[in-house]
């Protein structure tokens, strides 16, 4: 009787261990995939790039150009064109956002929900940190433009994230996010995006694809399209003073 009991208990322990390890492996794998996808859309030490934003609304198109400096999730966005917006600057530091324009005599606090232009929010040009900010549930694999993707349902860990819920398609071969759908708290899809990675950067000696275009589609009202084009990404260490509100206004 005793050997049988020992065998059963042993098997049970092995089963639980295998299940736990497989869960841990899956979680680790999900974290790894999300982290790699995040790395293709930002950098913790610092990145400088030029972003051209084009919003097509009904009959007209508006274009703006920004100089963006991003370090992890802190960003400084300075408007370069058109001339009447030149000098407008947004600073996001530790999740607090400030907006300054030459005609305002001081920077004013703004929320992350404020629109940059068209359907683009300021959060769209900051680095993503989905691996850390969201709880991921693995969904069934899917194919986007012939590319096999792992699909994740991302739920914000708290109300501080830019979006409450995101359905995110990550290309399995390249480990980059190529499609996303954004949902309101009530579960309504309000915008979607597709991403392209024509830029390349070198990380740890390895050449990797890097974000070049994001196309954002309004899914609620107008079906307008906003395109962000990322030019000349340069990885460089960005010091604290570039993200300092006391030095922002010149």
């Amino acid at each position, binding site marked *: 009787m005793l050997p049988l009991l020992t065998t059963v208990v042993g098997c049970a322990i092995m089963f639980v261990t295998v299940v736990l390890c497989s869960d841990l492996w899956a979680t680790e794998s999900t974290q790894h995939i999300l982290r790699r996808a995040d790395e293709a859309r930002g950098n913790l030490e610092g990145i400088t790039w030029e972003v051209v934003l084009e919003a097509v609304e009904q009959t007209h198109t*508006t274009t703006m150009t920004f100089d963006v400096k991003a370090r992890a999730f802190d960003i400084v966005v300075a408007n370069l064109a058109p001339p009447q917006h030149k*000098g407008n600057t947004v600073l996001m530091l530790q999740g*607090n956002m400030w907006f300054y324009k030459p*005609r305002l005599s*001081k920077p004013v606090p703004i929320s992350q929900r404020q629109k940059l232009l068209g359907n683009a929010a300021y959060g769209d040009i900051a680095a993503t940190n989905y691996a850390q900010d969201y709880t991921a549930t693995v969904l069934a694999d899917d194919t986007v433009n012939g590319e096999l993707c792992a699909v994740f349902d991302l739920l914000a860990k708290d109300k*501080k994230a830019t979006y409450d819920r995101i359905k995110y398609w990550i290309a399995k071969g390249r480990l980059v996010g190529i499609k996303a759908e954004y949902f309101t708290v009530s579960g309504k899809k309000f915008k979607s995006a597709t991403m392209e990675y024509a830029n390349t950067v070198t990380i740890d000696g390895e050449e990797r694809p890097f974000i070049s275009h994001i196309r954002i589609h309004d899914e609620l009202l107008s079906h307008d399209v906003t395109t962000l084009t990322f030019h000349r990404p340069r990885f460089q260490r960005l010091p604290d003073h570039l993200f300092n509100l006391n030095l922002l206004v010149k």
Partner: protein
Amino acid sequence: MRPTRLPHIILVWLVVGVGLHLAAAAATSTLSDELWQGFTSRINLQAFGLVQQPVDSRVNPGNVLNLPRYQAEVDIRPDLRLTFRRLEVSIKPRLELRWQQWEEGSRQGDRDTEVETFVHEWLVRYRMSEQLFASYGRENLQWGPAHLLSLSNPFNAANGQNNPRIEVPGLDYSRVVWIPSREWNVSVIANTDEGRFAQRQDFHRTYAVKLDYNAQRTYVSLIPAYREDGVFRLGFFTGWTVSDALLLHMEGSIPEHIDDTAILVGGSYTFTLGPTIVIEFLHDGSGCRREPIGRCVAPGTGIVAPTSGLIRQHYVLVQYTHTHLQDRLNLTLRWMHNLDDTANRLIGIIDYELGDHIQLFVIGNVNTGGKQVEFGSLVDYAVMAGVSYTF
């Protein structure tokens, strides 16, 4: 206008300096490229017309403040900036061509044209290290999250948000900013001259230390300040990013006489479709409770005694802002309610973008409550409309 040669000296110095730099740089194309890349400019031309109805009240008896009924103005506003290695130099010279006509007071029927040139702001800043910056110049130095008034600012609480087309005058400051970490900043500020902020009748130098702490989704600043005539006060502000849409803030100042404490609490909420609502409540213990409003000011000077820049003690601000409407229209509506006078000031600010360079604007201002209350004691209404062109 206060005569001063300083702006002209600075302007000449800047032009000569830049010229010398460019001449020297011609020898080495690398240096000339560096200088050229470090130079930025923004030149704005603004033309507007203003119609307002001055009020004959105890604050402005017989229009002693000489408020015109009609005004037309053309402003040329270049902002020039050069960043060269550790040095930043910026200058904002101004030229204003103004025509005015009076229908009230001693100048009734008069018309006048004047040209005014001055330097609105200028700054020389040197980066001593990645953590330490020193600067001197004429600045409109503003901070804090409040939309109604910047109570924590010991130099000038008026932040110009009622009419963003009129520039808030700068004062002269020397500043040292130390950035020991991402979270902590320390600024040591000396206000050495009243600059173009000529409303002050008796200027005294003021010294302040601004201590900033930025934490995740929150920030806190303390600003102890001392004025040379012996006045000490502690300014403060704090803010909390509650969610991607909701922000809360508080700003105030605590003087030596604690009953004169001024405090403003507020918050803003941004809706999914873009508009933002701001609500603020102000209590200023130093505000005047005497009736009518003429007993609160020195007649005919427009001088306001309380620290807040507003005369009474209690105010509410409700502001609605919707920017990028159809990517062209920016709309701001401000409703200021004076709880002591039960009077209102309604302000509408509309900008319409006509292409990449041109902006049309209208700013309207209506005051209710009559001449016995604060808001109605200077003008009944004012409408400003114009066009702006930016290179």
